[in-house]
């Protein structure tokens, strides 16, 4: 699998990210790093414990990372959760979370597959 194929599979914008990072090298580096990024886990935990503020920060960070990496599809669902939490609506956020979870697993899975191919 190529990086381009990976981006297409997860609904990311390959063109945008590679032009901003000046090529594939940095993009690959950070895409792999994303596997260990703790924001998703933090968001999940905060939602479970009802910590609206912590959940907001985690969702916001996840959104930022997605923007930087041009993971548009995952970014959009992170953005929806962020906005719900910004408004303090943890119920709505929880309702939106499964969609985000699906996208996250898809994204992580694909990147891991890519990494497997690279190794």
């Amino acid at each position, binding site marked *: 699998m190529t990086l381009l194929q990976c981006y297409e599979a997860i609904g990311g914008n390959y063109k945008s*990210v590679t*032009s*901003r990072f*000046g090529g594939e090298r*940095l993009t690959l580096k*950070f895409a792999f790093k994303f596997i260990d990024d703790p924001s998703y886990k933090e968001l999940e935990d905060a939602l479970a414990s009802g910590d609206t503020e912590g959940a907001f920060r985690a969702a916001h960070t996840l*959104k930022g*990372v997605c*923007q*930087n990496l041009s993971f548009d599809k995952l970014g959009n669902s992170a953005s929806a959760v962020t906005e719900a939490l910004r408004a303090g609506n943890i119920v709505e956020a929880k309702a939106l979370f499964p969609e985000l979870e699906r996208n996250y697993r898809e994204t992580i899975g694909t990147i891991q597959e890519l990494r497997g191919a690279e190794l």
Partner: protein
Amino acid sequence: MNRAILAEILKNYEIIEAKNGQEAIDSLHEYGDRISLVLLDYVMPVKNGFEVLQAMNDEGMTEKIPFIMISAENSPSYVEQAFDLGVIDFITRPFDALMVQHRVANTLQLYTKQKRLADMVEEQILKRERQSNTLVHILSHIVEFRNGESGMHVLHIQALVKIFLQKFLQKIRSHRFLSEDIEIICMASCLHDIGKIAIPTEILNKPGRLTDEEFEIMKKHAAIGADMLSKMEQHNDEPLLKVATDICRWHHERYDGKGYPDGLKGDQIPISAQVVALADVYDALTSKRVYKDALPHDKAVKMILNGECGAFNPVLLSCLEELSDDLERLLAETTNELMADRQSGKIINDLFRNNGINRSDSAVALLEKERTRSDFIDEMTEEVEFEYTVDPPVVKISSWAAEYTGLGEEFYSPEKNEKMLSSLSPDEYYKLVTKLRNTTPENPVVEHECRVTINGHRKWIRIVAKSIWSNEDPPRYTGVIGKMMNIDAMKSLIDNLEYRATHDSLTGLLNRSAAIDLIREKLKNGAEKCALIMLDVDFFKTANDSYGHSFGDSVLKHIASRLRQSVRGKNDIVARVGGDEFFVFLVGYRENPENIVKRIFTALNGKIGDFTVSVSMGIAAYDKTLHYNYEDLFLSADRALYCAKQSGRSQYYFYDKSMEHTFSNISPIDDQS
């Protein structure tokens, strides 16, 4: 993760990361303005971006360090608030590597330029301030000079005004005056009597009482001074000039309205003029004038408080009363401060006095570290680093050295610093200064070796210094940096080597080549009468053969010590030239060297154990009327010695013409120095 991406993009810079708002604040405190730029996120744990900005704003950090906000948020109110809090730029997510790099580089460049400009402006302000201070002092000095006053009057007024005003403000707890107002009033007070320039000297300096008519003329100086100043229309807005005009016109008004020229009453009189009036009266009472003697401080204060010398604001009078015990001391201190200010400009002095700007600067923290390090090294190596600036004329030395020499870390005008001059003698100081003055930007380094006295010990030091030149065209000599090294140990080593190279190790006398050099030098300098004595020990070989070499050595030592005792002072030269042969060179005897020669000859004869010590001597005596050189003297003395030996030893012969054709074959010494 977001930080990691940024760090990667900006990997050409040194980066400090903070994972939340509080850490960011802590880092800013720790590193201060060694941080060149801050990239700040809005959403952060513990403290958000705005909270960090607010805190940094309160500490004035945002003025020193550029903050760039990073965020996905870009609603107008958000952006506006960020700019209000002092961010200089915005970078929105997602980042573009190139854009981030350019924004950061541009901002850094902008700040560097701004800082440089600020430095330039500061320098200009300083220059201007010094120029205008100088002018005011020249002006006031002209007036004093014409008044026949000591030159201290204006300084005293200035000092007293400062003391009174500070007390007054403290008392009335008014915020109407700021410290800069005090500065201006002090400066303006110099000009209070400037109108006297228009008063004829006969009246101004009249020793006796003024007639009513004369007094009327004298009184005009107040209004004249004010007129002179107020007519300088192009400077009408200058606060200094406005205050000076007030002071000139009204410093002879009285609080009760009975003063001149306008008869103002109470607080119609500006406080500046009131204070100057009080200072003027106090200084007049306590100073000697053509028509009166100086009064003691207590008496002057008493007279003023009793209302014998005019009517003053009761608040001011209570200031005087409360200050009374300390006034003399304060006046002396403040006068000294003012004199120092005149020398080198106010701002610089403030810097020195408060160490204000210096110490709070975090660059200084770095320097401080560096200093501890270099102090330690200085102490280990006994080296002193120093720095001199021409303007202001200040010498700074490393703190270890400051303590070691007792000179302090900074001192003004080294040429007037007695402590320094008693350590490094004035003579050596001027030699060093001359060397430095003769440097050029191309050849800035000088070396100087001399002896100094530190804590009563004389030490040899070597100074290596480099003159510093400005970048202007032509370059200007702006200062010196340098190092002093203790070379005492090295010096004594060299002295020791020199001694060994010029002295005979057995007897401690000069050796042959050193003696010949000295004799040549004396002859060249036109020594008056002189005589060269060559002598050797009779039967020395026998002594050596029959009693052993160490006995021979003791004979030689005996001869050497006797010789040393029988010559006169330091002018005569005594040397062992080899084996059992010695030189004595007599310089500047009175009539005839015979007496001295006889004395030496007798002193050398004696007995050591069974061995009878005796010597044979040949003497060549010359006087100034003859041309001679060392070679002639040597040859003649050698011939005379030969004759003495030929005729049975143990005697001395003076050279005369009859020996001219004698050829020495006893003395194997040839003259190859």
